[in-house]
């Protein structure tokens, strides 16, 4: 694999800020953003991604988008099922914890997606404007499938928790701000967007860097909890994203997306949720140990994708685009 790409990716300010955060966590130093600012920053990122995607969506025809949307929905079902099955082989976890992990890996990570876009833009590689739509779509089905897989295993079943979890996913911040941003961007169009571009566009990479500093601290702390896990979980948390990412890239290419676009879809399937999924899982599957899922998704998969995965998926996409 081309270490140049990895080097380019690592030498970007957002990724370096992330590594600073990991280092700070290792030193037990306090570099976390205040909670209120962390919340506001994540709202900003969601809305900014949505708005930009909405403006771009105007330029896409329905036929153009239909294929990738269908591919995304299929991937939203396949990926968590695969995760559930593979975890049975790799670990001794029970079905509830495997379902919880499936929900995390079936869903997706906004920040990984965002870092991939920043990487593509820095590398002058184009991608379809409607990828933010795919991000929004992939948020949901993976979580639901994961919950269902775990639920089959559960005796009584907690109706209350399920409806709360459904609500949490459908009406949570992630989906509302992404979907809302898409609609607003679509309606406002390029002219309307121009007036807010200095805020939602110009600042984007800088705000992402600040956010990744915080995510680095969180990931670093999770990494510390790793010692308690066995071998199966870390292996899963690195190998599964490569598998799922490759599936996503294939799906994107088959659906007719460009190399850059297919790579982004690969990043979406490869990345694991650490915001929407943990909340929903905590409500619907309180028996699951939240530490396991978070250590895997936030402590291992997230840094792996951010530093190595992103350039790797681009290489895979370029390679597969040559074959298919």
């Amino acid at each position: 694999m081309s270490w140049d790409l990895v080097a380019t990716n690592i030498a970007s300010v957002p990724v370096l800020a992330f590594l600073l955060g990991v280092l700070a966590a290792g030193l037990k130093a306090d570099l976390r953003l205040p909670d209120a600012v962390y919340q506001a920053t994540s709202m900003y990122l969601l809305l900014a991604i949505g708005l930009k995607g909405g403006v771009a969506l105007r330029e896409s025809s329905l036929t153009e988008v239909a294929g990738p949307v269908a591919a995304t929905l299929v991937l939203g079902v396949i990926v968590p099922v695969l995760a559930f099955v593979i975890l049975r082989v790799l670990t001794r976890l029970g079905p509830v914890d495997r379902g919880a992990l499936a929900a995390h890996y079936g869903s997706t990570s906004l920040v990984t997606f965002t870092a991939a876009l920043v990487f593509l833009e820095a590398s002058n590689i184009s991608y379809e404007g409607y990828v933010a739509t795919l991000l929004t779509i992939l948020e949901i089905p993976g979580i639901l499938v994961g919950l269902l897989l775990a639920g089959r295993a559960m005796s009584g079943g907690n109706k209350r928790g399920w409806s709360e979890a459904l609500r949490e996913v459908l009406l949570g911040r992630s989906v509302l701000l992404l979907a809302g941003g898409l609609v607003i961007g679509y309606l406002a169009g390029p002219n309307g967007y121009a007036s807010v571009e200095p805020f939602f566009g110009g600042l984007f990479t800088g705000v992402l860097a600040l956010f990744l500093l915080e995510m680095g601290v969180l990931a670093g702390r999770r990494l510390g909890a790793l010692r308690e896990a066995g071998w199966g979980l870390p292996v899963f948390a690195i190998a599964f994203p490569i598998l799922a990412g490759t599936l996503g890239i294939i799906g994107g290419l088959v659906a007719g997306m460009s190399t850059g676009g297919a790579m982004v879809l690969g990043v979406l399937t490869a990345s694991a949720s650490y915001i929407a999924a943990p909340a929903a899982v905590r409500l619907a599957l309180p028996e699951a140990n939240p530490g396991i899922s978070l250590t895997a998704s936030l402590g291992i998969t997230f840094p792996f994708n951010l530093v190595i995965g992103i350039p790797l998926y681009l290489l895979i996409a370029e390679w597969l685009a040559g074959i298919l």
Partner: protein
Amino acid sequence: MDTRGFVTCITIVAESIVETRLLEGLSASGARGWTITPARGSGPKHQGMSEIEGGSIRVEVLASASVADRIWQLLREDYFTNYSIAAWEYPVQVDRAERYCDPAPPR
């Protein structure tokens, strides 16, 4: 009009993710009010979830002894097993005691 009286103050520390559900449960147990402060903490079972989802909440409920018992029941049935929870109660003296103990039937 001196309406001093004793009521029970239950303090509950819980992961903030369960806030909506918990408040509905308090209401259904007959509580007529509560006060919430943001919190964080550590305990014997700490699962490290709260650090990502906005920390914990600390809920204080003033209620009659019977409502307090119903709240303990609720905590035992729905929360102690799977969630990070600490709770304690003690008697306090209030003015306008009827505000906290009105025999409003549990919803």
